[in-house]
């Protein structure tokens, strides 16, 4: 098997290759004088990574076990609001409270799925609406400013030129997740559940505790990310933070995950987030307006959604046989889809 096939078959390697291409493209543009790269650019990419990363990681873990957490936007916004409101007493207490709220909400959703036998999309859809409403009630529908600027300065300060506390936290959670999924029995069990839930049950995998745990982790990570973003911006708003879903989903799918489950690893997701951050930085650098950004994001997401479609290969095969006049029946691959 050639190295190219190897890279294109493995989601994580594919994402890494795309990331490298992105980096080379940016470097080439830099050399041509179209964009100006500096340490500040790297810092801003990493800040973007810190915002989207943990949310995408959590979502990626739910997709890995063939589920989907749509409530991430709700927990993200709610985490920010809790962090700022409780943080007026003590900023560390605020962060702690936000993480605790995320954990409790995630556990509650996971338990609901297991004990009522409901699909994750249904439960988390209810969660999205409820948590969003809760954030509006807590803040009274206004944007909440924070008085504690020291905390914001601490979170935003540059460390070793390109990092901040936020991006270091994001890198740390990715490292922990990559280790757990890649090198522990828990990770193997998760991949088994995503690849074939029935077989996983037969093989003695504790499906239900893992499901509850993954949703708890996902909600905790998005609440943490929302809290850190709000602290760094010194403000929380119930509505302003809701554009997290699109970049998170795009990053996860770019990173080699499939909605059919079992595919995609945390490192792939990290590469996906970086690709997206670089894309945004590049677009801003060459002066694309906000609607251009929307269009590119939408197109990328649409492309990865089509690429993830289980019948894409069948359609391509049909197309090829149409072109080459040989009429052969298209092979169909059946794999029960997530929804």
């Amino acid at each position, binding site marked *: 098997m050639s190295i190219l096939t190897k890279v294109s078959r493995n989601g994580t390697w594919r994402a890494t290759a795309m990331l490298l291409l992105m980096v080379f493209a940016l470097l080439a543009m830099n050399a041509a004088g179209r964009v100006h790269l500096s340490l500040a650019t790297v810092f801003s990419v990493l800040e973007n990574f810190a915002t989207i990363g943990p949310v995408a990681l959590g979502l990626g873990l739910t997709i890995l076990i063939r589920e*989907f957490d*749509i409530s991430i936007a709700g927990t993200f916004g709610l985490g920010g609001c809790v962090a700022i409101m409780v943080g007026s007493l003590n900023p560390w207490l605020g962060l702690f409270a936000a993480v605790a709220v995320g954990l409790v909400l995630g556990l509650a959703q996971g338990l*609901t799925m297991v*004990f*009522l*036998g*409901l*699909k994750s*999309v*249904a*439960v988390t*859809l*209810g*969660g*999205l*609406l*409820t*948590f*969003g*409403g*809760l954030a*509006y*009630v807590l*803040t*009274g*529908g206004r944007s909440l400013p924070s008085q504690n600027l020291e905390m914001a300065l601490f979170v935003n300060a540059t460390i070793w030129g390109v990092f901040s506390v936020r991006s270091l936290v994001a890198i740390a959670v990715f490292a922990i997740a990559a280790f757990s999924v890649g090198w522990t029995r828990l990770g193997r069990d998760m991949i088994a559940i995503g690849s074939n839930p029935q077989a996983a049950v037969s093989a003695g995998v504790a499906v239900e505790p893992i499901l509850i745990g993954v949703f708890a982790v996902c909600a905790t990570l998005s609440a943490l990310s929302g809290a850190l973003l709000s602290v760094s911006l010194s403000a929380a708003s119930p509505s302003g933070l809701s554009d997290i*879903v*699109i970049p998170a*989903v795009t990053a996860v*799918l770019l990173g080699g995950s499939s*909605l059919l489950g079992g595919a995609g690893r945390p490192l792939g997701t990290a590469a996906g987030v970086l690709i997206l951050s670089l894309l945004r930085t590049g677009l801003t650098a060459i002066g694309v*307006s*906000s*609607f*251009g*950004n*929307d*269009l590119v*994001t*939408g*197109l990328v*997401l*649409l492309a*990865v*959604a*089509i690429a*993830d*479609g*289980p*019948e*894409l290969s069948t*359609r391509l095969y049909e197309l090829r046989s149409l072109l080459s006049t040989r009429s052969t029946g298209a092979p169909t691959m*059946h794999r*029960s*889809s*997530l*929804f």
Partner: protein
Amino acid sequence: VTLAPDLIHKSRLRQALIWGRLRLGWSVESTFRLLLVVLLLVVAATTDGIFTTQSMLALVNSAGLVGCVAVGMSFVTFGGHIMSFALSSTVGMATIVCSALSEYGLGIAVVGVLAVGLAMNALQGFIIGYFRANALIVTIAAASLSGGVAEYLTSGQTVYAEGAVLAPLRAKMFGMPSVAYVFVFCLIVAHLILTSSRLGKRVFMLGSNARAAKAAGIRIATVTTATFAMAGLFAACAGVLIAGRYGAGMFDYGADYNYQAIAGVLVGGNSVAGGEGSVWRTALGVFVIALISNVLLLRGFSSEMQLLAAGLVVSLAILLQGRLKR
């Protein structure tokens, strides 16, 4: 095989429950739902000012607009795709197109809007059905794309309609706003499509079991395209009405309709998994949520509290669809 008498005795309660369910169509869930509706009606009846014309008109106006989108959303849910995230943007886009086309007359504007709404969503449906791509993701992407297109077309400005061309849309007939008539019309059309046409049967078949539907020779791409086209058509109707009400078009006019619509569908008791349901239930759900919002408003709760209440009601509706593990 004979069961031990003890075992039979223990399961007598369950036997009674099963008998009631089979013979009377009675179930614990339906009783619970009925109790909730009765509770809501009692609370509503004891609220001051709920039976005034003004409050009733507000109820009909908001429920009618959400209702049109919710009828569209019902197609998506019944077809097994859970929900579309692009109906808000269809509504927003419809208000813009309606205002922009108003200089050519009301008829052209309405036809143009319906065509745009239909085309936007039919395209999504085609992508979803042809590649079996995930509906949630595709519609999220489409929402982002159409937001970008709307921003490009309008530069973020409000598009004002030509003179009084759209005025007939906010006229009243027999004391009821036009919204009410359009909603009832949409409801009847959707009901007829879903119950008496081949498309309706196929939507439900696809929703209950896509693989079986495919094995039965149903063309999934065609049916999915039609499902989403219908959703876009009904959402565009709401867009026309909103453009008529404000005499202007803006993308953000559609903002919350996705969530309000799916809330109506689920609160009405339609299955979130698809394959069954009725638009009458959707209409009931929309009215229940509108009534709750109205009661909260009249009892002095904030609009944020109404959002939370809607979220909680939807969660409750979803939880009621679960089966307790015994």
